[in-house]
Every structure is written in C-alpha cells, then in structure tokens.
C-alpha cells in the first residue's frame, strides 16, 4: 500500500477513472511509455489530444448547423475524432463516437445531435478529471511504475 498520502490519493483517483469507465487499457499503454526520459508523456499526449480534437469538435458543430445533414462528412469527422479518443483510452467518449457513427449510417439526424451533446459532456468531464489527476500527480511526484487497473 502506498504510504505517501498524496500518492495514495493519486492511486485512488486513478482507480476511479478506470472503475467509472472514463478510461480503458489504452491509457495504461501510454503510462508504460512514460519514463525518466519522458516523465510527462501522458500529460503531453492528453494535452495534444484536447488541442487537436477541439478542431474536430468545431468541424462537427459547424456541420451539424447545416441542413440537410451531410452524414458522410459527419461520419468522416467523427471517425477521426474516435481514432484520437481511442488513442488516449477515452472510453466513454469513444463509446459516444461509435453511437454517433451509427446514427450517421442510419441517417438519424436527431440521434446525431443528441449523441453529440452527450459526447461533448463526456469530453468535458474527462478533461476536468484528467486535469485534476495530472495536477495531483505533479504534487505527488513521479510514480515508479504504471499499475494496471483491477
């Protein structure tokens, strides 16, 4: 058991991100790439994800303002967004992306719109949680190894 209280708190926070379904195994893959030569790798990747995906979110918002919907274009944007989200282990965001694409394939515009609103909520929630996590990680100091969730 981790004796350092900050590290203990960090472990608990990390575990809850997995237990509550926000993150999946891919996040662990990122942690395994973090080492002394690359001590902030995970945070850098997540930062790049949010920076890069903001453009895709904007593209989707703009595309959803145009009627009739161009479902091919919507699907193409979401395909890219889903790929990036998968790469950081953003499990709930990825699930909403998958659902959105299904609505695109079936031409369900209302479904797309509803799903997109939910996706943005999940995206924002994950961002807040990860920001808090990384802030605590900086306070706690470097962890020795990546720990796999139960």
């Amino acid at each position, binding site marked *: 058991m981790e004796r350092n209280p900050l590290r203990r708190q960090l*472990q608990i926070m990390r*575990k809850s991100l997995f237990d509550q379904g926000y993150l999946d195994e*891919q996040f662990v*893959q*990122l942690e*395994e*790439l973090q080492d002394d030569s*690359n001590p902030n*790798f995970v945070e850098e*990747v997540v930062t*790049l*994800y949010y920076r*890069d995906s903001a453009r895709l979110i904007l593209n989707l918002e703009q595309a959803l303002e145009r009627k009739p919907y161009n479902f091919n274009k919507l699907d193409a944007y979401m*395909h*890219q967004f*889903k*790929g*990036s989200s*998968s*790469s*950081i282990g953003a499990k709930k965001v990825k699930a909403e992306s998958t659902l959105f694409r299904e609505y695109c394939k079936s031409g369900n515009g209302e479904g797309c719109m509803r799903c997109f609103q939910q996706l943005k909520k999940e995206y924002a929630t994950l961002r807040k949680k990860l920001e808090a996590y990384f802030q605590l990680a900086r306070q706690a100091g470097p962890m020795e*190894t*990546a*720990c*796999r*969730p*139960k």
Partner: protein
Amino acid sequence: MASENDASSSSSSKKLGEDQVNNNKNLNVLVVDDDPLIRMLHDTYLKHFGLEPQVAENGKKAIDLFRLGTSFDLVLMDKEMPIMNGVEATKALRAMGVTSKIVGVTSRGSPCEMQAFMEAGLNYCFEKPLTLDMITFVLKDFNKGDDDDDDTDN
C-alpha cells in the same frame, strides 16, 4: 488495483520487447498518418524500442520519400488519410517494387475493410490504437523474416 505481480510482469514484457528490439536498432521505420496525435504516439512507441522513425502526413508524402531513394524496412500505414490514403499508397509502393514490411493501422475494424486493406499489399493489419504488444509482434516477426528470407528491402 494493480498488484506487484502485474507491475513486474509488465516490466518483464517491456524488457522482452526491448531486448527484441535491441536487435533491430538499425531498422529504418516510417510512420504514415495524418493525425498528429497518432504520429506522436507511434513515434514514441517505436522510440521505446530504440528505433528512430521518420514520419509522413499522408500516402503521397510516403511515396515521395521512397521515390527520393530513402529506404525503409518497416512502414506503419494509416488507412484513412487525405490526398492519398493508405490503400492507394500501399498499392503504389508495391507497384514500384517496394518490398518493405508494410503494416496497416486503421480505426475501421470491420473484417471487410481490413481485408480490403490487406489486399492492397500489407504484411499485417491492426486496429488502432497500436499497442506495445503489436509492435513487439511485428519486430519479432521481422527478425524471423530476416532469418528465413534472403530478399532485401529496397
């Protein structure tokens, strides 16, 4: 929550992968993907194995590199890219006589789509995101292939 066994087995498999790759440090690797996040990730994965990949943003840039005379032993090829996608780029490379190992990486995981990508001339096709285990597999196979095969990459 993780047990020490999990952490240590993770370290062991990392070491196995790293040892595997210490044999491959002279490999020239090209990462072809239009997504800067994926390029960064795959670049870091490969550096984790002691490799120094080059990157290209789309299939056309990848082909241009080969046309300039740069040779690569291994190409990680995304499927969906602007200007020239992975299927077109793979077909073009094979038509040019390129015998590098080309590993397709796609977010479109349906068997039909992966099969279509394979038929373009891939050696393997994986669903995104790549994992350390997938790269270990490719590099192990690389060593096996080099042992069995006298063909040289162009």
